[in-house]
């Protein structure tokens, strides 16, 4: 049952995405000069392929969940794994949001500190050193050696 759900979930997602894109593309106004293959022909065909593949996978997952692959060996689920994944994603999202406001140096330092903690680093000195060294080295390398500007801090003008 779990195996069926494991396969049916992504199959349903592919089917739904394919249907969504197909509907969007079929409603797309005709563009460009008369051509043998228009700009939307290939994307439409590919969206239809996603629908077919998603439907086939869904059918297979529902009808014969045990045939396509041997069941996975039971694996110990890491405690709090999903929460850490969500926290890491939140840190990444927060970093992207903070970059233009706080600038590269400060936001990268905070991001590195947060991710080091999420990966299990509990030594304050190690975290502080990482927060100082990593952004500083990257900033000097990219801005001074490669002459590529990194985001400045809008909050500091």
């Amino acid at each position, binding site marked *: 049952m779990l195996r069926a759900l494991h396969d049916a979930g992504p199959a349903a997602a592919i089917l739904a995405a394919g249907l969504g894109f197909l509907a969007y593309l079929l409603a797309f106004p005709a563009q460009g000069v008369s051509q043998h293959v228009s*700009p939307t022909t290939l994307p439409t065909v590919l969206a239809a392929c996603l629908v077919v593949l998603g439907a086939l*996978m869904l059918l297979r997952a529902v009808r014969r969940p045990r045939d396509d692959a041997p069941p996975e060996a039971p694996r110990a689920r890491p405690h709090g*794994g999903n929460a850490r994944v969500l926290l890491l994603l939140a840190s990444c999202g927060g970093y992207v949001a903070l970059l*233009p406001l706080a600038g590269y140096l400060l936001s990268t330092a905070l991001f590195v500190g947060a991710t080091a903690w999420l*990966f*299990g680093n509990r030594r304050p000195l190690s975290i502080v050193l990482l927060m100082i060294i990593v*952004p500083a080295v990257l900033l000097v390398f990219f801005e001074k050696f490669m002459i590529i500007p990194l985001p400045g801090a809008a909050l500091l003008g």
Partner: protein
Amino acid sequence: MDVLLAAAAEVIALQNVAMIALGLVIGIVIGAIPGLNVPLAVAIALPITFKLAPIAGIAMLVGIYKGGTYGGSISAVLINVPGTPAAAATAMDGSQLTRQGHAGKALRMSLYASIIGELVSDIVLIMLAVPIARFALKFGPVENFALGVFSLTLIAVLSEGNMLKGLSAGVLGVFLSTFGLDPLTGDARLAFGSQELSAGWSFIALVIGIFAVSEALSMVERRGAGPIERSRVRLSDAAHRLSREDWRHAAPAIARAAPIGVFIGAVPGLGSAISAYLNYGIARALSRRPERFGKGAIEGVAAAEAGNNSVTASTFIPMLTLGIPGDVITAIMLGAFMVHGLVPGPQLFRDNAPFVAAFFVLMLVTTALHLVIGRIGLGLFIQAVRVPNQVLYPVVLALSFTGVYVATNNLFDVGVMLGFGVLGYAMNKFGFPVAPLLIGFILGPIVEVGLRQSLIIARGDLTVFVRHPISAVFLVLGVVALVWAGAREWRGGAARGASAR
């Protein structure tokens, strides 16, 4: 002969050797850093070379090119972050070998396969430049379409064992490549009114997201996996040495990949990423142990790297012989040639024969120095496996975000990288292979543009694809590959069914 000896004497002058070495070191470092690419490094170094003698200036650029093409594999192997898009093919098996405690094997194979690929490419450039250039120029939209279709059939090969999931990933890859402005008409499609998306999804954001971010998400989920090695890692340890068995598997893959890569390099507009993936797929298709691919097959690393680096000299074939740059790097190099008063094309061979001879010797000397510098570097690079995850992944993530930002210069693509990271994480979790997605994304534009241009030229006549002999051969090969992959999948499915009963 006298010309060649004089050229050799010129190239091995201390200044020129120093410039090659400097270029190689810069190239390897730049190549290993995600987001920084070889064209960028060549472009930045270009003004420096204006003040040097022609051969010294070109020597530095060639060093950066060759070093950078190889450098992407180092981070791909050690931290599963491809420094260059082409190195993503190397990451599939290279990073698995590192996880199994065989980083030295993967790094060694990556270096040696790269050097062999470069050497073959150099020799072909020197011996067969003119006939290959003539043949490569027969590649128009029709042939490019057929080559793209043939390469896409590798998706079926790489999907063996779970064809539906692999095909879905491949179709998704091609579909993602169609976002943004239409390459022929400039009409917006699938951009949803977004200015940033009108240029399509950034490939570097896709590659780094799929590999680095998804890897970090998987790693933080099962936190606690520490470094494999604690003490100083020695390349001489048995776990890091290449055995005779390793070479037995890798040698045929390299032997096939090098000539294929040389040819792909000679065709304008293709390039190292296509060569790496095509060769990776062919190596798996012809392997006696295809199930090892993606799980640490040394021949996977060998095929991808030999294919990747064997384009480095052959991309110069159309440029030197016809004055046509085959990719961005040779376009920049063309500028360097012209600044020094050297106009590539048939007249270059007539008017500047000593320079051409020196250039040929330069390619060989660069390859030899690459081996020396790369070999010295291995002992340093491999120490990265000692870094604990608690330190490694914060650095990898900061580098990935910074790399994508500097490569694209906008935060939108940094968000795109994060999105593709989640996609890669989900694909790994639900057993979808990522290689077909990347292959589809790379080949999508070649197939679409080739198809549409061909049909415009042929006024909608589809028989154009079988009337062109080269195209017909590729299409037949594609059908054969599909039938063969289908038969293997069917036999595998039947065997699995029997064992389940």
